[in-house]
């Protein structure tokens, strides 16, 4: 049942089927304002420029416009220095835009009342050493004006949820993974409607990452909005409903993961064995120039489905056993590299 141990690597998040399943959160979510805006986050023509000591103007964000619908997981990806953290800081009221407008739950991010409805896990979180996990969460809750009684009920359940129920030592003894789990717990302590997570799986082992993904999906199912900033593109691809690629301060692409990872029109045909007869049969259909063999696998882009079927017939006529035929899909990573590399995918 995911009992916590003082070992960051070994600690596990309590599974979704644990005795506590955010029941209190669900109750609170049900009580959310029914007039809540359908867009949790909205950014219009946001520009942020800095002036260096030498008077040079540096543009961190350039006319960025995007929105995040309520109850979805939104992924923001980009290279280092693309402006992701600047954007998140503006959305949390930590930074001010040079021009443009940002809205958080229909309000200005500088509005403290709006921020009370938001949770945030920063990328590089510093936890003061003197805190214990419970005290830290109490303090974070108090800063969000969470009722003490509510926190007394919520904090043990949250610690259980992130696998830190038994962690009674000061935070200074925590491993990186444990600190990250505590960071997640503090982001949830005020029962937020919108959650900003900056590299939430940083420092977690593969099991911990899987737990975070499950947690995110569960939170989305409860109607919460999640704004995810991660370098782990596979992770973003797995959980996000919509993704924006930020490149040099501009929105380079915006789509769903399916749209990003669409087929390239190429197919991989894997056969049991390759000899000259097989190559010749394939060349008849595909042509010598466009066929690309890698060991037992032929990669080619058919004009249409009939050409693909023709290839299959020819190969079976050799005869050779066909092990698999699969369309080539672009991974999010491939797509991302093409976008930031300047190639049009």
């Amino acid at each position, binding site marked *: 049942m995911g009992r916590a141990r003082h070992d960051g690597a070994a600690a596990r998040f309590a599974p979704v089927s644990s005795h506590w399943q955010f029941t209190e959160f669900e109750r609170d979510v049900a009580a959310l304002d029914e007039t809540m805006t359908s867009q949790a986050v909205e950014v219009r023509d946001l520009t942020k420029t800095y002036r260096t000591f030498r008077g040079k103007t540096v543009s961190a964000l350039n006319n960025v416009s995007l929105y995040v619908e309520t109850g979805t997981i939104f992924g923001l990806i980009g290279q280092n220095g693309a402006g992701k953290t600047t954007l998140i*800081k503006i959305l*949390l*009221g*930590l*930074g*001010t835009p040079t021009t443009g407008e940002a809205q958080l739950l229909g309000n200005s991010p500088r509005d*403290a*009342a*709006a*921020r*009370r*409805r*938001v949770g*945030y896990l*920063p990328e*590089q*979180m*510093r936890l*003061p*050493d*003197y805190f214990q996990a419970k*005290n830290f969460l109490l*303090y*974070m809750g*108090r*800063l*969000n*004006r969470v009722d003490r009684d509510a926190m007394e009920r919520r904090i043990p359940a949250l610690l259980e949820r992130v696998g830190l129920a038994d962690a009674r030592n000061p935070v200074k003894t925590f491993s990186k993974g444990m600190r990250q789990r505590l960071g997640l717990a*503090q982001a949830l302590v*005020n029962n937020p409607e919108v959650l*900003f997570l900056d590299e939430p799986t940083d420092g977690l082992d593969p099991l911990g990452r899987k737990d975070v993904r499950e947690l995110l999906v569960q939170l989305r199912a409860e109607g919460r909005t999640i704004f995810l900033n991660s370098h782990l593109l596979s992770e973003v691809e797995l959980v996000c409903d919509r993704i924006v690629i930020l490149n040099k301060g501009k929105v380079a692409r915006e789509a769903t993961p399916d749209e990003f990872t669409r087929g390239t029109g190429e197919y991989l045909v894997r056969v049991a064995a390759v000899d000259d007869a097989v190559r010749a049969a394939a060349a008849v259909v595909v042509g010598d120039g466009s066929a690309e063999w890698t060991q037992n696998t032929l990669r080619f882009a058919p004009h249409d489905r009939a050409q693909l079927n023709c290839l299959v017939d020819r190969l079976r006529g050799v005869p050779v056993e066909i092990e698999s035929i699969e369309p080539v899909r672009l991974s999010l990573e491939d797509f991302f590299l093409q976008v930031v590399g300047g190639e049009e995918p």
Partner: protein
Amino acid sequence: MFATFVNSLRESMSRRVALVLFGVAILVAVAFNSVVHVRALANGEMMIFVGTQTPMPPLTGVPSLLQSDLRATGSLWLLLALFAAAPLLTATLENGWLELVFSKGTARWRIFLGRFLGGLTLYSLTFVLATLPLALRLWWTTGVATWRVGVALLIQTFSFAALLAVTALVTLPQKGVALPLIASAAIWLLSPSLAMRQETFYRIFSSHIARGIIDWAYRILPKCSELEDLCMSFVERGVIVSSWPIWSTGLFTLAILGMTVWMLERKSF
């Protein structure tokens, strides 16, 4: 603000310099109490004995001893407490922590002010710890009222608040605790020279403009040394000789705190 205030006290207790401050406060209290003795003479007259010095009657001895106590703790305490309290302010703006607290649903100025008050409380608590035991004991054994120490404590806290406000202001545009400490310590060191500028700076600067600048510096900056003198005279005579150092320092503190809050609220992190 209260949550931040309480947390700043907890945080200060985790820092070595605050523990040293508490340790020194206890040492000062123990030292003064161990050298001061109140005994009745053969004729029944109560006298205060301090080591080998001539015994003093309570009416003059009590204020004199309290003055010594305040003098021993006063200035030194101000500086020690600055070292303990300044990190409370600078730590608020450390990367990784400021993102965590300033993104929460509490206004920045409340968080910062809570920590400022925490620093002030740290100073007052340790000051009380150092001076109150002797004051209480003297009052208990001699019957001479020692409440004036409380007023002196308030005046000294006023002085400390001005220096801590400078620390808070200098914390904003840069990282680290060194520069804020240097700035407030410099003001503290400058205050006696500015108060006696005719005997100090005027001898160096004969220019009318330079002297004008020095005069304005005196008028604007906190009057720590004069406030300390005010404490002594109040403990001795029970009279506030001049209210000028109090209200001008108060105005300075309010202006600096106001400027700090204004800058903090506008600052883009």
